[in-house]
């Protein structure tokens, strides 16, 4: 599984052999042109709507309706400050950071702890408990929407941060535990035995030996879980309605309902919602694609 992390960047450097150059020539010019057209077409389709969105965030709504395609006559940056205040983006960002940060730390901590036990302590309960988590990877979380809401409602956890964080952590565990268990299984037993001979308890071994060694898998789980929670909408949309507890996606959703025809602010809000994840992706591109590939084929 960790073999998936062969960075193809390094492979690209290691062979610029004549074999590959000839491969590019071998398929002939016509198929090559077709491939370029296809790839450039997709690139255009990715970039055009995003650039279009960014340009229109600088138009007033009236100008957008008259001129939805061209550049603005007058760059109206005020859309941003208006949208920011209207949707209270400061609060939205703070909440999104809190939900994403706390739930990701929770998922990593509980996943590593359980994974350590599953991987390195023999127990006849492991097949049952670990199997339960594995089923959760393929499980459709959407189907739990209604009972989760009714449970939160019954226990008074609707409109609380805890009520959001508990399901976020619980539903992040299957993938986290799977990736961590497979990783810790791959660690040599000798490392743990060395700790035992020194008289360290399991807890000490966990904190001082396992966690430092698990950094690569921690990064993968953090990226997958972080991106997932940052963009999560379905659950928080029903669990929380008070303005001061909303996350970014729920706040941005307002610009589709009552404010749908206020295009200037809508585009500004969309840009504000796009910038964080796209920046994150462009900075950590290789790590993210590795993580997604590992997470998805196991999911």
């Amino acid at each position, binding site marked *: 599984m960790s073999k998936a992390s062969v960075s193809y960047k390094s492979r690209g450097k290691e062979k610029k052999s004549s074999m590959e150059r000839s491969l*590019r020539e071998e398929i002939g010019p016509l198929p090559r042109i077709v491939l370029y057209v296809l790839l450039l077409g997709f690139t255009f389709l990715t970039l055009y709507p995003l650039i279009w969105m960014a340009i229109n965030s600088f138009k007033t709504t009236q100008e957008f309706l008259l001129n939805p395609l061209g550049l603005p006559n007058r760059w109206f940056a005020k859309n941003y400050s208006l949208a920011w205040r209207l949707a209270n983006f400061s609060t939205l960002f703070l909440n999104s950071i809190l939900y994403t940060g706390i739930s990701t730390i929770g998922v990593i901590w509980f996943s590593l702890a359980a994974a350590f036990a599953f991987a390195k302590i023999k127990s006849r309960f492991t097949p049952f408990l670990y199997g339960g988590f594995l089923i959760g990877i*393929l499980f*459709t979380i959407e189907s739990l929407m209604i009972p989760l809401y009714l449970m939160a409602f019954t226990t008074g956890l609707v409109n609380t941060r805890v009520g959001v964080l508990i399901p976020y952590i619980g539903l992040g565990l299957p993938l986290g535990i799977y990736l961590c268990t497979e990783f810790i299984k791959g660690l040599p037993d000798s490392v743990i035995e060395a700790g035992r001979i020194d008289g360290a308890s399991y807890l000490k071994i966990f904190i001082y030996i396992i966690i430092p060694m698990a950094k690569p898998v921690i990064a993968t789980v953090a990226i997958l879980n972080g991106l997932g929670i940052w963009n999560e909408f379905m659950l928080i949309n029903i669990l929380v309605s008070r303005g001061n507890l909303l996350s970014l996606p729920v706040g941005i959703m307002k610009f589709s309902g009552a404010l749908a025809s206020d295009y200037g602010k809508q585009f500004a809000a969309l840009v504000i919602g796009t910038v964080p994840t796209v920046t994150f992706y462009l900075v950590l591109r290789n790590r993210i694609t590795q993580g997604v590939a590992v997470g998805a084929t196991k999911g």
Partner: protein
Amino acid sequence: MNPPHLYSKSEERRAYWLLVLPAVVIYWAVTAFPLLFSIVLSMTDYSGGPIFAFDFKFVGLHNYVSMFKDPYFWISLKNNVYIILISVLGQIPLGFIFAYVIFRKLVRFGDFFQTMIYLPAVISPIVVGILWQTFFSPYGPLTKIMQHFQPGWRSTFLLDPKRAIIPVLFVMLWMYTGTYLIIFLANLQKIEPTILEAAKIEGATEFQTLWHVILPALSGVIVTTIILAISGSLKSFNLIFAMTQGNPARRTSVLALYMYDTAFRGAPNYPKASAISIFIVILSIILIIITKAVENRYGGREE
């Protein structure tokens, strides 16, 4: 594996539960428990209010019958099937072709193209949904672009009940092709380079290499991506919620949205919504069983 002379059995057992229990409790509390709860609820006529007042009757499978008789259930199910089809016939083949082309370096700038094609997948589905809703709207740029070629053209895409699902499917293609590209590329890179070189030395053409070496090596991954596409279709709530809310006339609804509407729009009908959720669960369980069967047949996923 664990020399018994270093740790006593009871200490080992205590450590095990100390490590495992928090995860197990949280996980079961938000999955198994609500699931059981949902099964019970789906067979009652509960209509809101405190649940532990037990102010409801058991009605057997009434809610399931009502679901199967509901035309919106079938519309939603049909849209789920369309979404699976666009994945299997669109995203997966395109993702594979792009991954293959980049892996074999048939074009330059593979790294750049990969980044561009995957980029939409990291944007929030809510942002994507609102963006494309505006794009396809009668005031949107699509109308202006088309009017260049055909004056008087009007965008009725998202208004026409029969065709409204088409733009939704297009956006799904736009958003998720890159995910399949990444999955295929990662698994292509696991193929031993020596095998490919051997094929080359023996004079295999590009097409022969693809057909006889690469595709067989990826058979397990292809199956996995199809399973992913199917379970992904059951999860397509967010994008559609932001883009169309299931409209016009609920013709772009999917099962998850149909369940949401039943529970939260208009008069709440939690038991029927629970019946829908159990239906989705059963569907996913069938999928898991098929996955396992296929995996056994093909000798597991690519390792």
